[in-house]
């Protein structure tokens, strides 16, 4: 018997596969062909001067914070610092577009975003000083712990936003990741879950050109990282990550969209990591000075300063005032970080489980004996400096 002889065969006309239908129209999801910009374009005239001045002050403070934190590594006051110098527009915009009730999910390079949101810099830097993994209560500040395993915080942002939405709370989660992080499986899974659940999440990819030493061309063959959004059925936005006004506008729109219940957005901010990966890295092994110089001309502070001074919104006195304020912040940070953190070794056993297991009680006893031998009887509250 051939297929022609099957019942109904004569009447059947081939069609698309019966179960197939387009799930989503891809056209509105596609990113612009070029990164969205405001500064240096006609749109700049419409930008709110007050917002621009606020962004400027925050950028200058942010740059000074990065410089101070890097200096603290040289003085041995920080174990390591992954600088966001050059990326301040991304960090500041991410912090400023969120309401107090919203949540920020930073990676290890995003302490500046946490500080710009109002977190005490010392609390933000405990991870990198090495005295505490997380120096703040995440729920108090709505800032998730700084996340080191790449992209693994993204599904957390999705789950949190999903839970808030189920509860009927008006809460948006903004999660930060780098270009290298987009290659991780958790990036894929988080974006997929967010889109399926229409979770109120904004994914901000800071494409700073390098994953430590590996350039973007070795990371992806996609037209852009923003294009990846289309595969998940969410819009992708491509934006100039050094244009603070553009960053603020695009992230604000994505947050508003999430708040309206329209689901997640992937934002790719094209920027550049001006410093090495961390103070322990040597960037001269994988990139040339000329590349760095072309980005120096496109510096986020320079771009904004040109706009503000050109429009007469900022003069030399205004700039000095902003710099002086940033300098005071740096002085305060330096002073606070010059104090030795107070640590109690017995805390090692405090927060492994709600109640210590028998094993941990035995091990705590052992450590107590060792400490007593070292310092005299341990009073249970006593502490020691780390240096």
């Amino acid at each position, binding site marked *: 018997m051939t297929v022609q002889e099957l019942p109904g065969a004569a009447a059947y006309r081939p069609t698309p596969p019966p179960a197939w239908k387009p799930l989503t129209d891809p056209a509105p999801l596609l990113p612009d062909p070029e990164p969205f910009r405001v500064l240096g374009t006609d749109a700049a005239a419409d930008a709110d001067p007050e917002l621009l001045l606020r962004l400027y002050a925050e950028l200058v403070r942010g740059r000074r914070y990065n410089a101070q934190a890097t200096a603290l590594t040289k003085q041995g006051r920080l174990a390591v610092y992954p600088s966001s110098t050059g990326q301040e527009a991304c960090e500041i915009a991410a912090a400023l577009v969120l309401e107090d009730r919203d949540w920020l999910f930073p990676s290890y390079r995003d302490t500046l975003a946490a500080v710009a949101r109002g977190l005490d810099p010392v609390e933000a830097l405990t991870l990198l000083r090495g005295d505490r993994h997380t120096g703040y209560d995440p729920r108090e500040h709505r800032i998730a712990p700084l996340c080191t395993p790449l992209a693994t915080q993204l599904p957390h942002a999705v789950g949190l936003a999903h*839970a808030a939405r189920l509860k009927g709370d008006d809460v948006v989660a903004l999660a930060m990741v780098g270009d290298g992080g987009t290659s991780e499986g958790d990036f894929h899974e988080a974006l997929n879950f967010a889109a399926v659940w229409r979770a109120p999440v904004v994914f901000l990819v800071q494409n700073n050109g390098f994953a430590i030493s590996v350039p973007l061309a070795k990371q992806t063959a996609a037209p852009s990282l923003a294009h990846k959004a289309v595969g998940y059925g969410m819009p992708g936005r491509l934006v100039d990550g050094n244009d603070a006004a553009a960053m603020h506008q695009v992230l604000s729109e994505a947050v508003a969209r999430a708040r309206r219940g329209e689901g997640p957005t992937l934002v790719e901010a094209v920027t550049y990591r001006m410093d090495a990966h961390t103070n322990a890295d040597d960037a001269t092994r994988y990139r040339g000075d000329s590349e760095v110089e072309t980005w120096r001309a496109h510096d986020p502070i320079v771009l904004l300063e040109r706009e503000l001074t050109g429009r007469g919104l900022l003069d030399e006195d205004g700039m000095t005032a902003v710099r002086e304020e940033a300098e005071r912040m740096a002085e305060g940070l330096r002073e606070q970080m010059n104090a030795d953190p107070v640590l109690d070794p017995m805390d090692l056993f405090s927060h492994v489980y709600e109640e210590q297991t028998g094993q941990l009680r035995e091990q705590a006893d052992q450590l107590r004996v060792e400490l007593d031998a070292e310092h005299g009887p341990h009073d249970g509250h006593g502490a020691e400096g780390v240096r």
Partner: protein
Amino acid sequence: MSTAAATAGERTGRVKPATMAQALGRALRDSMAEDPTVHVLGEDVGTLGGVFRVTDGLAKEFGDERCTDTPLAEAGILGAAVGMAMYGLRPVVEMQFDAFAYPAFEQLVSHVAKMRNRTGGAMPLPITVRVPYGGGIGGVEHHSDSSEAYYMATPGLHVVMPATVDDAYGLLRESIASDDPVVFLEPKRLYWSKADWSPDAPALVEPIGRAVVRRPGRSATLITYGPSLPVCLEAAEAATAEGWDLEVVDLRSLVPFDDETVAASVRRTGRAVVVHESSGFGGPGGEIAARVTERCFHHLEAPVLRVAGFDIPYPPPMQERHHLPGVDRVLDAVARLQWEAES
């Protein structure tokens, strides 16, 4: 005792045979009814009721938002559960099979296990990860792993394994109620084991972390858990013919580990064999043997022996009976406990 005992509902106390799968399902149901923050999520847990039907009826009773069919991505499921727990929910995650839980390993080790610690106690994660585990059901490749050694080696996790219908209910209720993350290992081949059980007045157990003597005896102690408990009880019965009166200890959890109950038993009997399905090398038995030896050395008449799965990748189902510790292998180990000194 605990919160679970207070669950309302008509308690008629009628007793009828129930399977472990049914008791687990009932535990989920009662937890969800009692606490609106309990959410179940996983692959096929909603409409289908789970591939082992443990979540059968939950989506119908509580809605898709409380019992959610997720995309097929274990790291995503557990990662999302972390975020849900951060926002105050109490997620219960189902991993479809032992070996399919591995994609979620990074979330489990780097976040679930550590979040309480890395936030100085500010943000514990009350997540229960249910994992159908172990062999003996004729499963093809990647469906029969005993993965408890990986989990017990990760500080911050509790590792709980029920072996009876009563414990399946009680331990799962306790695990969900715990503010610590729990890896809850469900022995697949006991899913259909039956016991008389009262679904309306389920027996509850003590807080997780307490082992129990399932069969008192004087000659030697069999230390076991999960799918190997029935094997050990059968071996103990068979051993009476040889004149051995074996005590059987069911650990019920590897973390916390109940040193007290185990050591007390071995001090009484003077001999011990650890029995589990997981591979012996680097497996739980090594840790248990060491702990017993450290605590009971002067009471021991013989070295602590281990009967475990071979140190091989889990074999094809037609060969699995040679791999799994059975009654004969347990009795053989008991025979090697240096009884010569007794005669």
